[in-house]
């Protein structure tokens, strides 16, 4: 079924339309991002479990199959290795699949295909085969779900050469980062903080987007730096607001890109503040926060006034939901780490 002719959304030089700015949830902005990618490029496909009629369990793909047909928006059989493996084949054939994994904990049946094929084909073929595949993964906890629905496996992917890994934290980034990830000729693991799906912001679809693989300073401050990504970004911003009421100005950086890591702004900030607190829901051992800690001590050793401190989940399987309030970094734990840093 052919896509209906629709108005083209031009990212770079469109003239401002009155309806270009809307208040949207992150789920809606991702939906808009997918829609405009499907409209612009007939080779873009959306595929996954329940993405069609149901519109995905979080409704991120709502209405897309109705408008683009069953061969652009594919309800796949229930098999993640199949989803990723066929996306690899479709990419070899020139398509740009955007795969949805229903929940973080269900990516592992597809892990083999991601690590063995998706990550390595460009290198193995000496650049002859491109892998423009996006794998969207709703991740993290805080929604009171049962086992396997709250995990933060992003470090496992950042560890794999050949993959790019990003995570959005707000509706505006979600839209632009997804658009750019789909345009990227490399495989991108796209981590969406599921407990932020229904938070809202104003999105202007004709604005000039920041680059995809770059971190961003969200709040300027002098006392200490907090670097974070995904679901803990709003938590850290709230912590910075709370600290500001007591006269402590914290700098908050949203890392956005986890592989490659864009640590330039972090180094620059730490050289000014002398203190770094990292926040992430993922277990700390051998993680993105360990990597940043190592690199900051290497690059900013003489500027550091305190050791780099981390506020994270723990090195255990994700606990039952009645315990997740103790597992997830919250505002108090972030401020406690800031206090410890300032006390050095």
């Amino acid at each position: 079924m052919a896509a209906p002719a629709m108005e083209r959304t031009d990212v770079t030089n469109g003239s401002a339309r009155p309806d270009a700015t809307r208040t949207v949830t992150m789920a809606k902005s991702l939906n808009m991002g997918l829609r405009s990618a499907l409209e612009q490029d007939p080779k873009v496909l959306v595929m996954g479990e329940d993405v069609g009629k149901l519109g995905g369990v979080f409704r991120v793909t709502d209405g897309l199959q109705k408008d683009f047909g069953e061969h652009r928006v594919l309800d796949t059989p229930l098999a993640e290795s199949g989803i990723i493996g066929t996306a690899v084949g479709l990419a070899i054939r020139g398509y740009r699949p955007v795969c949805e994994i229903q929940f973080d904990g269900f990516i592992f049946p597809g892990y083999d295909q991601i690590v063995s094929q998706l990550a390595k084909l460009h290198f193995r073929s000496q650049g002859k085969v491109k892998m423009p595949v996006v794998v969207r993964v709703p991740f993290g906890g805080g929604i009171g779900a049962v086992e396997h629905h709250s995990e933060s496996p992003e470090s496992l992917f950042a560890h794999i050469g050949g993959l790019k890994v990003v995570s959005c934290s707000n509706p505006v980034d979600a839209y632009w980062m997804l658009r750019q990830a789909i345009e990227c000729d490399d495989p991108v693991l796209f981590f969406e903080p599921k407990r932020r799906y229904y938070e809202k912001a104003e999105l202007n679809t004709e604005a000039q987007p920041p680059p995809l693989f770059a971190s961003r300073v969200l709040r300027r401050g002098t006392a200490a730096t907090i670097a974070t990504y995904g679901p803990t970004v709003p938590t850290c911003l709230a912590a910075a607001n709370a600290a500001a009421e007591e006269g402590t100005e914290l700098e908050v950086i949203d890392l956005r890109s986890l592989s490659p890591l864009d640590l330039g702004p972090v180094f620059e900030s730490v050289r000014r503040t002398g203190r770094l607190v990292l926040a992430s829901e993922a277990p700390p051992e051998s993680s993105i926060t360990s990597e940043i800690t190592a690199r900051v001590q290497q690059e900013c050793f003489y500027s550091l006034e305190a050791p780099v401190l981390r506020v994270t989940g723990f090195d255990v399987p994700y606990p039952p939901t009645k315990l997740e309030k103790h597992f997830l970094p919250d505002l108090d734990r972030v401020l406690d780490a800031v206090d410890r840093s300032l006390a050095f």
Partner: protein
Amino acid sequence: MSPEHWTRPAHPADEPDNGVTSGPPAATAAKPTREQVIAGLRATSEGGADLVQLLTPEGERVTHPDFDIDLTAAQLRDLYRDMVLVRRFDREGNALQRQGQLGIWVPLLGQEAAQIGAGRALRSGDMAFPSYREHGVAWCRGLDPTELLGIFRGTDHGSWDPLSTGFHLYTIVIGNQALNAAGYAMGQKFDGKVGDDDGEATMVFFGDGATSQGDVHEAMVWGSVYDAPLVLFCQNNQWAISEPLERQTRVPLYQRAAGYGFPGIRVDGNDVLASLAVSKWALDECRHGNGPVLIEAFTYRMDAHTTTDDPTRYRLSDELEAWKLKDPIERLRVHLVREHDADQAFFDEVQAESDELAARFREFCFSMPEPDPGRIFSEVYADPSPAVTAQRDELLGYLDGFAEQPAAAQGGVH
């Protein structure tokens, strides 16, 4: 009954005409239309001679040449009681979720006969590997239904002992348990527990959607090449969340068994007698060393996938209405009244018992204690890890700090 009956190559002349397997050999056959394929997948008692049924939707007892079962009136009443009680606490679980007492509930409504039939065929030495909807099988394994609540209330990941109950923990990652079950069954065989009437067997439960997963396919390969005493019990409830059966397969699921070299049987999953008879037969085959066996219990998920699902987005109410007429409990009730003089007193008794169970279930839910934060770190390893122990001490020390300054504890919103 010999397995060959089920595994020999299809012969055009003796295949039922369900629009899929009939006609000339595949190479020359006209490709079936999409509609024919779907009709074949959905063929039921009205459409397929392949469906094992002992009790019609009207409650009439019918016979089957290969699978029959002789049950006393008392045994039939027990099966009825099982189904009513299981349905009752399932509905209570659903209601408790609606009232905010549970984070989620996975309803089994409509699948009582499939589960009670299979569950009552198991013996104490057998092992069952459930997915996450098998509350009826849990009941048959002797778990108190309250043991299921922790998972859905979020206080634990399963509170029972899989080894002493013969009922493994619920498995949420689709299909994983099929391979675990195949391995367990291989162990039963390696231990010499297979070969006669007293042999052991393993039964694994999964849905129609799960049959698309590599793990389920691999379990069939492993089970088959090691002749494991494994009964693969697929509850084909027609839907994998929003995806219909035809999104998972082009052939009726039970027919896939032939490709692995073991019997595949389709049973009316809303008929507890047939489910019991076929399960007993299959387990018996396994006990004697003739496993594996695949059973496709043809049934229907009458409620939402889970309490977070909205089935009105993807399925028609007509379908639901048609399946209501095949209700597993109602047909046994009619049969009991007609053929076994079950009187109102019996039904009232079961009703009263189910109300009591529901009340106890609900009360237990309300009184469940909050888990201790230390539980996050306990039993992660058999041999405790110093790093995890240090993380525990740090968190518990941090939380103790709040106890002294209650004001600070208020701020934990994010």
